[in-house]
Every structure is written in C-alpha cells, then in structure tokens.
C-alpha cells in the first residue's frame, strides 16, 4: 500500500539520488518503491575501509511522517551499535526521526556512525537482544546512551 504523499516524496528522492549521487552510497535497482536496497562502502582510512554493506529500507504508508525501517542485510558490520541481526541503534531512525531526513541523509549518518568507530565489537548483550527482538527494529524500545556518534 502506498499513499500519494509517500510515492511523490520517494520519487523525488529517487531523482535526486540519481542526479547527484553521494560518494560511497549507491542504490540497487529495485522494482518496488516501498523497499529499497542501498549499498554503502566503508569510508577510506576508517576501520571499515573497502568493506561493503547493504541497507534495507522499508517505507510505510505514512512515510515521511513515519520513519523508514532500516536494517543491514547480508553482511552485517561488526560495530557496537549494530546488532548481529542487522538492527541498528541510531536515534534518528526511531524517536528522533524527522520528515526532513532523506534516504541519503540516513546513509550518511550510518556511514558516519561506522567511521567514528574505534573498536570493532558486538553490542553489549547482543545475544539477549537478538533472542528477544522482533523482526522490526522499530518495535524495540531503544535507549541512546552514546553521544559521540
């Protein structure tokens, strides 16, 4: 299901992404406007340099009023804020979402989060979380405790 607002806005973002692509961010071709796959490449001179990851964006009918569901799929980066099931602990994806944010803005934030990492490690209590968590990270009650990202 899509709404007029969602379609209009996603088409605009799509044109903008194609017109001015961001470095290290590339959109996979997709036949559905509601689910996008975006490839991101680790920034040079960081712990994730030359590593490739894929982000899955699922847009609800209420997008951009409601945040998209963003998860890593396939190769999940080893990062203290990324759980091994692909869920990302990033405030702007949940409580601090605003409709001003775009797909490339989210990718940039995630790249920035990866780039600022000093030690590749699993989040604390990763095992507990992936057992308890539902399929969507938006159902999780997140606590954001790291102001340095």
């Amino acid at each position: 299901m899509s709404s007029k607002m969602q379609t209009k806005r996603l088409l605009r973002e799509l044109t903008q992404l194609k017109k001015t692509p961001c470095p290290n961010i590339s959109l996979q071709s997709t036949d559905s406007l509601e689910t996008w796959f975006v490839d991101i490449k680790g920034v040079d001179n960081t712990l994730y340099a030359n590593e490739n990851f894929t982000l899955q964006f699922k847009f609800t009918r209420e997008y951009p009023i409601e945040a998209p569901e963003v998860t890593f799929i396939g190769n999940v980066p080893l990062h203290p804020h990324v759980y091994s099931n692909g869920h990302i602990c990033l405030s702007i994806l949940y409580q601090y979402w605003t409709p001003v944010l775009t797909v490339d803005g989210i990718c940039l934030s995630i790249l920035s989060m990866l780039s600022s990492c000093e030690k590749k490690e699993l989040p604390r209590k990763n095992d507990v979380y992936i057992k308890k968590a539902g399929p969507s990270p938006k159902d999780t009650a997140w606590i954001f405790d790291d102001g340095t990202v």
Partner: protein
Amino acid sequence: MDDSNDNAHAEASTGNSNAANNAVVGHESQQQQQQQQEQQEVGHEQEVHITGQTKTDIVSGTTTARTDKGKEPDLGAPAAGNAAEPGGNDEFSCNICFDSATDPVLTICGHLFCWSCLVQWLDRSATCPVCKAGCDKDKRPPPPQRQPNQFFGFDPFGVPGSFHGAARGGNFVFTWRLWLLADADGLLANGMHGVASAGQPVGQQAFISRVFMMIAAMILVSILFY
C-alpha cells in the same frame, strides 16, 4: 549477569527505557522554552505579503501565509512561480513532501510546509521538523480557508475565503458579490442535479429560497455601505 542498571542501550521491554532519555529531553525542553520566548518577542505582528495584498495573521505565535493555489508568497525574494525543481530544491518547497507547498504555512521559526503535511507531523510530535522548536497543540495553524473572519470576529457563513483582508479595504462589496455569484452557480448546479435525479420540488424550493436570501443579503449590504 547484571541486567538492571548498566547502560546496555537496547531493551525489548519498555520498563525503564525512558530513564536515559529524560536527561536529554529535559535539556531540550529548556532550549525550546527559550526559543519560544524569543519567538514570541519577535512574533507579535508579522506581515506576509501575498501577491500584492497585505495580510496580518496572528495565530497565537504562528504566522501563516495563505495563497491561492499556484500563487507563491512573496517573502522578499523573487517569486519562483510554479517552476518547482524536480529535486525539490526551490525555495518554496515544503520541507516534508519536498513539493511546492500547497496551502503554505510558515512556522514562527521560519520554515515552510504544506498545511496538511505539517498537521500530520504535529499529530505525532509537537516540534518543528526542521529545527525542533516547540509547537503546542493550541499553537498549530488553523486549517486552510477556515479562519475566523477578521471583520466580524467570526465567520458568518463559513464560506471559504470570504472577505479576508478585503473587509478593511475598498473592495469589500466586490468580494462579497463575487462570493454570492460563486455560490449561486453552485446552487444552480445542485438544483439542476436535484431535478434530474428525482427530488425536483425540494431542489427548486431550496434554490428559490436561496435566491431570495441572496437578494435580501445584497439589500442589507447596500444599506450598510451606501
């Protein structure tokens, strides 16, 4: 395992999940209060020039700019017309849908939105999507074309766009007649539809009584203004 008070940042339960946020939120609300104070100082009377007409709206802290569809508010910058860039980069695009703003609303913090986009967002969060300045429920902009009449203090007919700003200007009667004509057209169409479908006497009677009401209203206006 010490599950209780360490700073693991995800919990599947909602138990004490707000504790860590409170500090941040509290800090933010202080900022918002400051911002609001500043805004109120500045925002007592702001004028928005709309294609030649001047209209002052004081909607309890929110300045709104209303234009007809397709017209752009002239906010001191050259009007961009309808040439919205496909990327949504033109300066009159809504910050939510990225399209040219329809029923444009300018928040007191200076950010432009479509009225419907902004209201949808404010239903979820009482903040400006761009700068997070606070916007309480009672400070949200009124729906388009349903503002209380500035001259009478209320909108006697609930008619979209009836004499806004024109009440104090010279073209009051002109606007008024335009409304009557527009309404008569609408009634005529309704009346004819009534005839065609089945309820002919009801439709015709309503039409005739409305015509009499219109004439009475015109006489009243003539007495008042001549």
